[in-house]
């Protein structure tokens, strides 16, 4: 993967050149084992050395931006991450002159769940990971397993229409030919189910939820900071009881607040420790927003989110038919 190596060096050089003027640059480094990456907050040359941009580096750095408000920071962003940044900019939650964007043309990131499923047994601690051009060599307990990269890419990457950053100050890598977004098969299959089956599915799924709020905490568009109405003691929106209804109410709050804002980075689903397929809800809501308002969050600057504006005659709302 010489291409990646040179891209990494190119990126490092670009960051190095601006590091002095930035409070922090957010990228990725290796996590607790070679298979897992973790966000890296670069404040010094030494930090910079740990930077990685391998397909294992999955986290959306846009999630951390609002915490840096008023400071000038840099972000290493893939296509989907740049959409989150654009949406945050459009909503005036961050300022354009307070972020420097180091864009990566992205070939996709891995799904740890798919890796886990593809390995013969739960790997536990991984000793080494070697990245080939199209495959991944993972060494666990002295034994190497080889996985095809294409087979362990995250679903969102398989159907990604925006692999290249839509806004960037520095662009690293080669741009992709335009692609069409597609709906994953599991989405279509789920949507085709009847109400009873869907309800039963959510009842079941929501009984798994442990209300850890990881989905919310990693969401780049969840900007209520410490004031989420789901966890406020003052609001009567919901109780802290761990029942399917209350867990689902929490998800309804999340998806409702994301109407017309979700950039489909998939972080919520990735972060869920009990594998709740939250993107089913997100993709469906985004589809409705696209159909009614012709709007997709985070694909263009200076767009108002659809629920913050209106038209006197809504071309695609036929509410008077009832």
């Amino acid at each position, binding site marked *: 993967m010489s291409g990646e190596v040179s891209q990494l060096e190119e990126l490092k050089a670009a960051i190095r050149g601006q590091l002095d003027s930035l409070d922090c640059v957010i990228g990725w480094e290796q996590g607790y084992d070679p298979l897992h990456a973790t966000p890296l907050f670069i404040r010094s040359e030494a930090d910079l050395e740990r930077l990685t941009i391998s397909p294992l580096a999955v986290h959306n750095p846009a999630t951390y931006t609002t915490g840096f408000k008023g400071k000038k920071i840099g972000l290493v962003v893939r296509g989907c991450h740049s959409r989150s940044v654009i949406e945050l900019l459009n909503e005036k939650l961050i300022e354009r002159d307070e972020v420097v964007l180091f864009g990566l043309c992205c070939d996709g990131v891995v*799904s740890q*769940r*798919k890796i886990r*499923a593809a390995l013969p047994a739960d790997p536990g601690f991984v000793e080494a990971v070697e990245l080939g051009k199209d495959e991944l060599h993972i060494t666990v307990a002295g034994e190497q397993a080889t996985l095809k990269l294409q087979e362990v890419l*995250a*679903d*969102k990457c*398989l159907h990604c229409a925006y692999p290249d950053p839509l806004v960037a100050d520095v662009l690293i890598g080669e741009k992709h030919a335009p692609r069409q977004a597609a709906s*994953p098969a*599991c989405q279509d*299959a*789920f*949507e085709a189910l009847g*109400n*009873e*089956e*869907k*309800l*039963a*599915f*959510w*009842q*079941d799924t929501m*009984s*798994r939820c442990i209300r850890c709020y990881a989905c919310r905490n990693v969401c780049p568009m969840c900007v209520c900071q410490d004031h989420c109405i789901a966890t406020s003691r003052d609001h009567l*929106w*919901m109780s802290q009881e761990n*029942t*399917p*209804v209350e867990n*689902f*109410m929490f998800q*309804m*709050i999340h998806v*409702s607040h994301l*109407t*017309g804002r979700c950039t489909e980075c998939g972080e919520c*689903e990735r972060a869920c420790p009990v*594998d*709740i*397929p939250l993107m*089913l*809800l997100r993709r*469906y*809501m985004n589809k*409705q*927003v696209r*159909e*009614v*308002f012709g709007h997709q969050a985070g694909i263009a600057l200076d767009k108002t989110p659809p*629920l913050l504006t*209106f*038209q*006197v*005659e*809504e071309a695609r*709302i036929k*509410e*008077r038919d*009832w």
Partner: protein
Amino acid sequence: MSAQDEQRELRIVGFLCNWCSYGGADTAGVARFIQPTDLRIIRVPCSGRIDPLFIVRALLNGADGVLVSGCHPRDCHYAEGNFYARRRLEMLKRFLPITGIDERRFEYTWVSASEGQRWQHVVTEFTRRIHELGPAPFFNPVSEEEWAKLALDGAARGASCACHG
């Protein structure tokens, strides 16, 4: 539907703006336009005050139907409230199918303060629709056994999910 079921009230929650639809419901009352009794009305100043999550909360709490009514577009007492409401409510209505909650349990419409007759029609039709749909299914398990079954099924299936990447 047996006569007894028809007798049984279902729980229908209405959110009405104060200026048009609540007035329209008053007008219907003053004119003694007989309506089904299932509906209970929550008065809000404007349809723009209605958070779609109020409706979700009601539905998840077990409401059998939720009806929202505001001023006709262009007639909003606050000029723009129903324009925002229309977008929010339309998105909710379109979103409900993915949750498995029958979207026909939620409806929004416009009734002005002078339209007592229209209000009667809206309430009658919506109530009829909800009765046709019958009581809403419970989201939570209703008995200890079901709770247990749900937990066991979940455990048996483990953390994997076909629909997941």
